[in-house]
């Protein structure tokens, strides 16, 4: 019971946590809407190149604040400031940690101690039968995957493919 109570207050604290704004640049001329919906009223316009701060997101939408307007636009119509511009560009674990959002306790490079795959190592790759056998052992069936998804509360939806642009 004590555990549940602590968890509840942790969740409340998370929800109440102020959202840090993030610097963005608007990618194309677009309208701002009063809510995260295509049917919400238009409350302003922003031009390509406008600087602003994103303070929230809902699905495909982000909430943008500029000096002249505030409103919602599609997230793919903004570009977030680069890590170098945003924080000193140390290029190492610090950059990764900042970019990893809430998952700030892992530095993969330092953990693994390697630089990883590049073109040369890929070109020299020799078939690893043991690791392939291990990979096989992790496989699951279609039915088991469906059962797992259902157990996790996921339900399939009918969604048509996008039309290529």
């Amino acid at each position, binding site marked *: 019971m004590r555990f549940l109570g602590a968890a509840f207050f942790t969740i409340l604290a998370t929800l109440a946590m102020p959202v840090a704004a993030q610097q963005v640049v608007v990618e194309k001329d677009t309208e701002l809407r009063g809510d995260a919906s295509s049917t919400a009223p238009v409350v302003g316009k922003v031009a390509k190149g406008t600087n602003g701060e994103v303070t929230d997101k809902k699905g495909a939408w982000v909430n943008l604040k500029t000096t002249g307007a505030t409103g919602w636009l599609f997230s793919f119509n903004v570009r977030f400031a680069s890590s170098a511009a945003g924080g000193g560009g140390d290029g190492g674990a610090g950059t990764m940690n900042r970019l*990893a959002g809430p998952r700030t306790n892992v530095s993969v490079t330092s953990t693994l101690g390697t630089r990883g795959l590049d073109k040369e190592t890929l070109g020299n790759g020799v078939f690893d039968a043991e*690791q392939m056998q291990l990979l096989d052992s992790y496989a699951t069936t279609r039915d088991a995957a469906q059962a797992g998804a259902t157990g996790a509360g996921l339900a399939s939806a009918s969604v048509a493919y996008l039309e290529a642009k």
Partner: protein
Amino acid sequence: MTIVRSLGYCLALALASGLTGTAGAATLDLGKLIGAGKDLATAGTGIDEKQEVEIGREIAGRTLGATTAANGGRSALVNDPELQAYVNRVGRWIASQGERPDLPWRFGVTNDPTVNAFAAPGGYILITLGLYEILDTEAQLAGVLGHEIGHVVKRHHVTVMQKSAGVSAVAQLGQVAVQARGAARQDLFNRVIGTGAEIFARGLDKEAEFEADQIGVVLAARAGYSPYGLIEVLHKLAARGGSDESLALLFSTHPHPNERLQKLGEALEPRVPTLPAGQEPAIRQVSADVAPAPAARPTTRAAKPEAPAPAPAPSGGTGFGIPGFGSFPLRR
């Protein structure tokens, strides 16, 4: 008929070379072999699914070998069986939403600090730990896996091989290679896929990547996830920029994430009002002990009938994972 008999002879020669361990591979007249089979029915239709799976398996195995080499001999796959089972459960569920649900799909997280993912023909998908660790939600993982599954569904790498070596050559070499052994097998596969896993170093054309992005979004949505996980991952990649060493290979083989965002946005924009909101479950955390065991051996356990449900993430954060932008509460 004469042509078929001739190819049969060459096939037997190739197999015999392989079975004897062979130095004969070097002298195998592949030109004649290809020429002899040009009229076969498979020449015009490309490789069949069995061949495709075998070719993909060879590429995946070489990629794991390259990862092991890059790790100084430590195991290529992350030594976290629960994580691997989880990624297989999520990946197989997403693959079930596409046109090739019954391929022998395999998913693995590799001990590689770079940010990347690979899709080999036939359903072999590898995602690096460097990429997995920057994902905040299962919806983002779904977007990434959906993109890779899209490459397999559309046979993008097979198309590259066929453009490079010719449709009939790939079909016939592949047919011979899957039956060969030893050095002959390696030589034949090299003729189809190049040396090692260099096919992943060459990349695909831009249109194939854009197409895989669009498929990835839809497959994730069909699987019940937010369609926008991949958008968030692309934002992360764009924000890190091309000067980030861990992204060097990815940036050299893919269009810039900003271009991908633009193309994906253009295709998505008219559909946003009708797409389901989907879910953004917490992503499973990697075990604290991700350091691979030296000389890891394959286990003998069979494939799990049911993968465990993901453990709730300790943090409730989600969003774009951009600096200072990680404190949005989960929205389900």
